[in-house]
């Protein structure tokens, strides 16, 4: 089993590199007949590549979903913010002495309509990753989110959450400042809101770190995102004393968007372009945007009280048990 998305996609990447090389050869070719032959080859290879992508992505197992959800090239919150919204102004600080960069947020316009955006942010290179703490928010991240939720309530702005975190930060600092309380308080605040709230999982929905900003009126997941109570490696370590059995745990945990929908825990799966969001971020953003608009639209008719009741009932009904 591949351990990373890069490793898993290597055959595909090699194929694409070869196609690129062939294109270069074709471009330099002076003999029209030969060039035409190259073009035919390229078209054939490209068709093969598309078939290969379809094949790979049509049969994504739970572990492959984990790899795709964690892919470095996958669009992150700020990538979506940039392509979906206009006039985004990032607001920072928890006003309690700390600033967190694993959760970002601020007001923006969605098709000209004022909204409040909150989301986890990961980094792509070493510096960025450190700055973003690998997308693992500390208490101050959730306290900033609470501040933004509060503002959204006062200024009557719908709240849009982008969820993409491996987990909340587990360090000594976070424990000292009450990471558990911060997560619980963020959810608590979300249940107070009378404005519409929509959350979308765009990569990793990592347990408490994720639900802290996703107790929303509507919860969506991208086609290849995951949502789990525990990382599969951690689960495997507990169950079989073998963290390397992450793939088996991924299967057992039913952490795919498709399973979440089957259990009635999310409202909608948002499709991704052929081969995943990272292959066509522009198209991916268009699909996310359209889903956000539809879901906001569907909530538009509810009064503040109805909004709260709907949200309460939605989460109230989650859970399966026998009643003798």
């Amino acid at each position, binding site marked *: 089993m591949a351990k990373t998305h890069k490793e898993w996609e290597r055959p595909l990447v090699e194929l694409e590199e070869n196609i690129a090389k062939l294109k270069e050869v074709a471009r330099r070719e002076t003999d029209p007949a030969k060039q035409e032959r190259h073009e035919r080859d390229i078209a054939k290879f490209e068709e093969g590549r598309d078939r290969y992508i379809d094949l790979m992505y049509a049969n994504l197992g739970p572990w492959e979903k984990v790899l795709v959800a964690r892919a470095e090239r996958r669009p992150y919150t700020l990538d979506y913010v940039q392509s979906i919204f206009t006039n985004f102004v990032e607001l920072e600080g928890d006003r309690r002495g700390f600033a967190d960069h694993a959760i970002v947020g601020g007001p923006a316009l969605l098709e000209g309509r004022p909204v409040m955006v909150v989301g986890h942010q990961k980094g792509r290179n070493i510096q960025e990753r450190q700055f973003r703490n690998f997308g*693992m928010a500390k208490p101050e991240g959730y306290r900033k989110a609470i501040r933004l939720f509060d503002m959204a309530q006062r200024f009557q702005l719908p709240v849009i959450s982008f969820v993409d975190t491996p*987990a*909340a*930060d*587990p*360090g*000594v600092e*976070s*424990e*000292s*400042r*009450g*990471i*558990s*309380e911060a*997560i*619980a*308080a963020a*959810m*608590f605040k979300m*249940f*107070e809101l009378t404005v519409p709230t929509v959350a979308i999982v765009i990569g990793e929905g990592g*347990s*408490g770190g*994720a*639900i*802290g900003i*996703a*107790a929303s009126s509507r919860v969506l997941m991208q086609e290849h995102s995951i*949502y*789990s*109570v*525990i990382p599969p490696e*951690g*689960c495997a*370590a*507990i*169950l079989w*004393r*073998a*963290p390397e059995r992450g793939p088996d745990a991924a299967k*057992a*945990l*039913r*952490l795919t968007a498709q*399973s*979440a929908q089957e*259990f009635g*825990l999310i409202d909608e799966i948002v499709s991704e372009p052929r081969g995943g969001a990272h292959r066509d971020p522009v198209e991916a953003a268009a699909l996310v945007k359209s889903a956000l608009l539809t879901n906001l639209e569907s909530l538009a008719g509810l009064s503040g009280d109805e909004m709260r009741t709907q*949200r*309460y009932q939605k*989460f*109230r009904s*989650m*859970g*399966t*048990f*026998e*009643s*003798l």
Partner: protein
Amino acid sequence: MKRRNSSALFLHVRQVDSCPGSPITRQSSTISIAGVSSETLSNKTPTPGSAFLQCAACKKIIFSVDFEQNLRVCPYCGHHHRLPSRLRIELTFDEGSFQEMDQELRSVDTLEFPEYTEKLTTAVEKNGPNDSVLSGLATIDGLGVSLAVADFSFMGGSMGSVAGEKITRTLERAADQKVPAVIFCASGGARMQEGLLSLMQMAKTTAAAQRASQAGVPYIAVFTDPTMAGVLASYASIADVILAEPKALVGFAGLRVSKQAGVGKVPDDFQTAEFVHKHGMIDRIVPRKEMRTTLSTLVRILGSGARAEQQALL
């Protein structure tokens, strides 16, 4: 606390197989735990009929009668041994006042998770059918409360759909009947075997706590050993008043998780009731023998507004 003593860890984690609430992790040769403090597991319940038992913390031999009379607190070192839910209710609330509710709820293996059914069966055989939470109504010095008491011995007190539903109903009953809610927490975290369903119990119980808060009824949480992860990061931490038993393990992520995340040395009292108290995350550490009085006083004073409303309703 000796929980970072490696031999204690081994001894302890081996017995925690049925407790997979998120934070306990194991690898082939090294073991670390998050959700569970070690000592009390090895002899959490004294063998019935035996006249003596050994304190798991200080290893001294205790006369069983003294141990029981002392509310299962070691008379030598003050270690608070874990309590089964029913005994805790007996020791804390008015005699015979407990009316159990929600006892018809049973966990189901919706995910068809490996070995879950077997683990549930074992836990039910050992602890009875109540899953990890006992809920209902009781009185304390004559004042009504809606209460829930978790039991670590049922799959590590982990929160699955049943525990989530019972906590939710406890908070809803408090809101509806205008009585204070009292919840004793004891949990390694969310129940992994119920996957995302158990993660959603965090949101569900938090929503219920929000509703109780809005209804103007006080909600008091008591952290007992251990109160961890998904439980700590949801309904437990947003109570109006938070009490804890001395030395209870209280934390978000297990030591293994912290270490994997590159966390180096941790303070000696890391993830204890004393640590979170020092950092302002809980109100008071209350020894078991003072718990009843403390709760009674809080219920009487904080619940006075709700009682007035209740009277008006009648």
